């Protein structure tokens, strides 16, 4: 399973739609297009810089904190 697919699974765990995740990522300063985010979540992560993936992970982790779950998705080293 790719990092993107794992992230998509985490997204489902915290009940975020892909649309919600995209807007949270954009609000944190993410610069990828919506279609590119979709591709990443579908398992095609070739074009993604680790720093951009970490912005998406941050969006999911903030959602974990909001709903009171002490689980974090691991960040990518770069």
């Amino acid at each position, binding site marked *: 399973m790719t990092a993107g697919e794992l992230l998509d699974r985490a997204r489902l765990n915290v009940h975020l739609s892909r649309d919600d995740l995209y*807007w949270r990522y*954009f*609000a*944190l*300063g993410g610069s990828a297009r919506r279609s590119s985010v979709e591709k990443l979540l579908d398992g095609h992560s070739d074009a993604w*810089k680790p*720093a951009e993936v*970490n*912005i998406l992970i*941050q969006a999911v*982790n*903030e959602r974990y*904190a909001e709903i009171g779950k002490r689980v*974090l998705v691991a*960040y990518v080293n*770069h």
Partner: protein
Amino acid sequence: MSTIEGAPRPDDGPIVADSNLADAGTDLTLADREALIEAREMRAAQREIELDERERQLVGERGNTIDLTEAEDDARAIATSFADIAVDLFAAGELTEVMRRIVEVANVVVAGCDMASVTLLEGEKFSTPVYTHTNALRVDEVQYSTDEGPCIEALLTGTVHGTAPGWRAQWPEWAAKAEEAGLGSVLAVPLRIPNTTHLRLGAVNMYSRSKDGFTETDQETALILSAHAAIAAVVARERMEKDDQERTFQEALSSRDVIGQAKGMLMERHRISADEAFDALRRSSQGLNSKLRDVAHDLVRGTGVSQDG
């Protein structure tokens, strides 16, 4: 003096409309004239009979003679009334306001309706956001607790419920509760745009204190109302979604702006890259158990603690 070609002149003598009389000239006897007048009157009477027959064909209701002028007036009044309703519904703005106006209008335009409510489905949950009388709310909620009844059925299937013979037998428990609440009959009409896929938007529920309180005309009026209401509801919902999207976009832009400023400050202060600045904010966010945007905001305001996270 100029004259208009073909116009009668004062010396032309009397103008005679009937060609037979005109052709007869002055040689006719009094009896001849009376016979011609009688023939003319017979033709007029025949024309009147033919017009009456045509009128009956136009009205076309089991051969009954209906005053066409009265029917036209009624149709005009209904059309005007629904034109006003359409304007009113579109002016309502928010979805709840549209719904509130729908129940008010249902109470007025559907003759048998004593009280009205709207059923909505959000996720798996039915609710009555608007109603004209608490009894309407009460009997709606009985349906939601038992998961059956005419309003739920109308919403889910997109068809009218409550007026077919034997409807009480279909939901005996609910019908008994409705009667306890003083309601004798129900007309539940789906909020549905004609000739489109049924979207399960909701249902307009109309209740009458009388048994069999709704006529066919009531049902037809309710269907026209529900079509108007469905269009207004869809427009209101789209408007709300658009407003939500704009709000989300503005909030996201504002968040990006403050995070960008904070990253810029860290990059300048510590001679680091943009990605490293983001990582520093991220670590601070985790350490302080705060959202990254709030950490950035504090940093920009000068109250944040951030050296290297």
